[in-house]
């Protein structure tokens, strides 16, 4: 047995490069093992402890440095990692490595870039014990190549990211992988790696966070002995194949790398668990292909040096066969997404897809952190939601933008006036971007493009939006109880334009200004404190501690977002404490629309339409606790301002006449807890059941419609792919024809509150001041139910 201690860095790297953990490996089957029998081999046992101050990569003279590299024990910072490697030469001249690795940690303390003194990306550590085989055979896809068979099982794994002493890591990682027949060839000056079958599974016991530097790499707090807080656990399996080509030459200068490749996901499942309750993404399939991905060390558009990942084009499709939510296992349906990221001009400006990885993160968080200077260009995408067999496709999604995203692991403290919270902090620094949808296709991707993207408003999503974004979202570990997330965020959106109604931006005759109802010159300032996110038996439960926001719409316009006409300025202020939202699988189930009754016959006899909307769909249960005003920014209010003075940049806010609904709040109307204040626990409770379902659409006038389809007033619209327009009008549809009614969003809503008050309604004149028009409004005992079906106009 040989023992190696403190190996010099170059030798160390050469050795690590040859380690089975760094290669793709294959478990030997019985047949292969039988060929090993009787063969002589070499067994090497190594207790490894190694370190290197710096490992550098240079590209056209610009360096990126991995600092503080260490390999050794995962449980003892001065200990060694045990390696046992048995090498055999098989009868077919292939080399087989059987290996066992115990208690190994590979880590580095920081990654720095040339020209960025005092700023690092942060450290990474990887713990693992593993056992497996690697077989190397001569001959790959070509006679001059190689073939690798890889198989291993990893246990006791950890993978962590650490900045300024605080870290987040995957804990208790177990993984099996089997990848036979990986070929490596040199073709035309490039390396081609093909993995025809990669299968495996994994579990992650917990995703932990630590705000104590002394806890480095431990699952428990060194001070209390308690398990570190967890975001939840993961498990899954995968079956995919891939091909990758690596060639020399970056996008900048003469050095660098170029990567091209494709991946096909034959099947995969991903399950996230929060205290045992799952969010399961099942039956995942898809494919992706990327071309001309370059890797350089180069300056970004602002002259800042970074590890540059610049992309030519990425295309693919992705399908999640079932999304299950909550311990009860219900499904909200199936999602499918296809996409093409490629260079494109938006709003007269060229965009590409690139990420420059830099060190530093938020400047007040400490010297370590991640800064991603990113530019993106989603040239085209569609996403489809299918539930109970009905599909709606949101077509022509495009997105563009540029800006910095920072990542830091932070703790609860204020540094240089910047408030940080426990968790992983995602910062947005000067992000200018936007997105837009072209329209809907109902049924399948070949259906005609039609309007109706505003149906997404039911889910809180604008059909088109461009904005400038700054702020942060910190994701803390631990929810309301046990595992989960705690969110603290501060978001500022400026110079935004959000479509409330939107027409197509390209109806087939080329790009055109997107007509609609636009909230323009929009500034949005939103803050959330101690919002917990948990998966429960019911579904996904979100509970806000305190949240306040101001949405200031400078101009509400019709038509083009740059049109002159405006309804004026609208300001919506929100201040809520203890509001909550639960997202549950399953929609409305059986519904009687326009009548009453719990059965089809009872409903129809009352004049209603009986609808069986199936088992899938989404239910959103909202509770909004509108708190009393405590300041000018923390209050619920609505302001409509018109007749403003026209300045050089348009109407100037605050110079016109305002209608102000001041201090809107909910109340239970009684003081049951005896604290001298009226309770405010009921709030506004709203249950939204959302399904995709057929709906009755009737013709409003006799004659030909916009597409030349003739019908009489009162006739029903029935979808029929055999007709030129894709539909026809029927006076009295049969039951089978009713099954072909147009699809749309069916929303069943139930909203109720005990008391909703407006403290005053004021009229404010710019020089005359405020005059109270109504001294108070009190709306009590409200219970509203609605069954609405929204279909696109064709």
């Amino acid at each position, binding site marked *: 047995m040989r023992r190696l201690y403190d190996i010099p860095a170059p030798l160390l790297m050469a050795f690590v490069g040859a380690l089975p953990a760094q290669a793709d490996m294959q478990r030997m089957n019985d047949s292969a093992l039988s060929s090993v029998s009787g063969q002589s081999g070499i067994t090497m046992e190594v207790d490894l402890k190694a370190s290197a101050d710096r490992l550098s990569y240079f590209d056209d003279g610009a360096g990126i440095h991995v600092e503080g590299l260490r390999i050794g024990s995962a449980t003892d910072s001065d200990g060694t990692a045990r390696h046992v490697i048995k090498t055999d030469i098989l009868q077919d001249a292939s080399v087989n490595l059987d290996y066992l690795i115990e208690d190994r940690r590979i880590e580095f303390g920081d990654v720095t870039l040339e020209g960025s003194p005092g700023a690092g990306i942060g450290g990474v550590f990887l713990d693992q014990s593993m056992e497996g085989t690697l077989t190397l055979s001569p001959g790959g896809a070509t006679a001059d190549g190689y073939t690798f068979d890889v198989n291993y099982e990893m246990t006791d794994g950890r993978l962590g990211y650490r900045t300024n002493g605080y870290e987040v890591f995957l804990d208790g990682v177990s993984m099996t992988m089997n990848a036979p027949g990986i070929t490596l060839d040199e073709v035309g000056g490039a390396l081609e790696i093909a993995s025809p079958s990669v299968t495996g599974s994994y579990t992650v016991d917990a995703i932990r966070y630590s705000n104590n530097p002394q806890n480095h790499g431990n699952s428990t707090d060194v001070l209390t002995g308690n398990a570190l807080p967890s975001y939840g656990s993961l498990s899954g399996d995968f079956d995919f194949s891939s091909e990758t080509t690596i060639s020399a030459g970056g996008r900048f200068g003469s050095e660098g790398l170029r990567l091209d490749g494709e991946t096909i996901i034959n099947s995969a499942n991903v399950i996230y668990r929060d205290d045992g309750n799952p969010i399961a993404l099942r039956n995942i399939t898809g494919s992706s292909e990327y071309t001309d991905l370059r890797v350089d060390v180069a300056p970004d558009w602002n002259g800042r040096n970074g590890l540059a990942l610049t992309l030519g084009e990425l295309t693919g499709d992705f399908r999640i066969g079932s999304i299950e939510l909550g311990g009860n296992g219900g499904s909200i349906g199936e999602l499918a997404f296809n996409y093409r990221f490629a260079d494109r001009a938006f709003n007269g400006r060229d965009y590409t897809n690139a990420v420059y990885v830099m060190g530093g993160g938020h400047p007040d968080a400490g010297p370590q952190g991640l800064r991603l200077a990113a530019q993106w260009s989603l040239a085209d995408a569609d996403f489809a939601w299918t539930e109970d067999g009905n599909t709606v496709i949101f077509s022509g999604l495009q997105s563009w933008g540029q800006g910095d995203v920072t990542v830091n692991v932070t703790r609860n403290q204020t540094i240089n006036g910047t408030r940080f919270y426990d968790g992983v902090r995602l910062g947005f620094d000067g992000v200018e971007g936007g997105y837009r949808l072209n329209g809907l296709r109902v049924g399948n991707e070949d259906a005609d493009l039609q309007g109706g993207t505003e149906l997404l408003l039911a889910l809180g999503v604008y059909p088109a939006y461009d904005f400038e974004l700054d702020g942060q979202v910190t994701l803390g570990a631990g929810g309301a109880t046990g595992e989960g997330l705690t969110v603290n965020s501060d978001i500022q959106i400026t110079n935004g334009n959000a479509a409330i109604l939107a027409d197509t931006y390209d109806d087939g005759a080329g790009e055109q200004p997107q007509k609609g109802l636009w909230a323009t010159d929009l500034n949005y300032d939103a803050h959330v404190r101690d919002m917990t996110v948990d998966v429960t038996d019911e579904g996904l439960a979100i509970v806000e501690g305190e949240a306040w926001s101001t949405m200031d719409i400078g101009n509400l316009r019709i038509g083009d977002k740059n049109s002159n006409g405006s309804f004026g300025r609208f300001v919506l202020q929100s201040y809520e404490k203890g509001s909550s939202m639960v997202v549950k699988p399953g929609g409305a189930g059986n519904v009687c629309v326009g*009548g009453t009754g719990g059965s089809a016959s009872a409903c129809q006899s009352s004049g209603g339409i009986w609808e069986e909307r199936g088992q899938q769909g989404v239910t959103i249960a909202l509770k909004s606790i509108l708190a009393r005003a405590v300041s000018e920014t923390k209050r619920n209010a609505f302001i409509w301002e018109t007749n403003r003075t026209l300045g050089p940049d348009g109407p100037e806010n605050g110079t016109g006449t305002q209608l102000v609904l001041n201090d809107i709040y909910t109340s239970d109307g009684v003081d049951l807890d005896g604290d001298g204040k009226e309770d405010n626990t009921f709030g506004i409770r709203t249950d939204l059941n959302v399904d995709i379902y057929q709906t009755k659409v009737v013709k409003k006038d006799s004659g030909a419609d916009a597409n030349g389809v003739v019908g009489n007033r009162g006739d029903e619209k029935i979808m029929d792919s055999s007709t030129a327009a894709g539909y026809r009008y029927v006076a009295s549809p049969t039951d089978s024809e009713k099954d072909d009614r147009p699809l749309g969003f069916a929303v069943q809503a139930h909203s109720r509150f005990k008391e909703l008050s407006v403290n005053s309604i004021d009229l404010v004149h710019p020089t005359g001041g405020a005059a109270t028009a109504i001294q108070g409004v009190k709306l009590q*005992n409200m219970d509203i139910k609605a069954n609405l079906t929204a279909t696109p106009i064709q």
Partner: protein
Amino acid sequence: MQQGWIIAAILGLVMVTPATAEMARLSDGDLSDVAGQGGIYLSGDVSINENGGPIQNAYFGTCDEGSKRCGARLAFQLKANGGWMVLDDIRGKFSFQGLTLRVRNIDSGFGGDGAVFNRDVLEVGLPNTVRYDDVQFTLANSSTARPSDPGFQQTDVFSIEMQGDVVLEGNLLVFPTGNP
């Protein structure tokens, strides 16, 4: 939650728009002149306090309790320290098919006025028929905002009940005018 505000904003817009709206019926022929066919078509029903509201006290109860009121109650005070105007016991159900909402450009029709107008408008296409089921409310004066407040006294002025079909044809065209 923010999406609630978004929906409220849309509803608020619809509520405040009649002041700047014009009624006009649009035939299918006119529709064929419309550039773009975006928008949504809404059908369904809305019921208010079908079985009562969430408050259970000496004044409010379920609709099976004949001695109590089960509808919603809106009180507003026009004068400081004055009495309250009340819409009380608000209940009922509305059903409709074919309420449409979209943006359209008017550049023709309307007896030649369309070409002169040549602007985009928000078009609310009214459903041909709205069915009213037991829609009712009571107009009243009250000494306090709540029935549960000390010294509560209320005088009911009159009550209204509506039943049957209401014909609502045409379109509501909404567009900005004046100085924003």
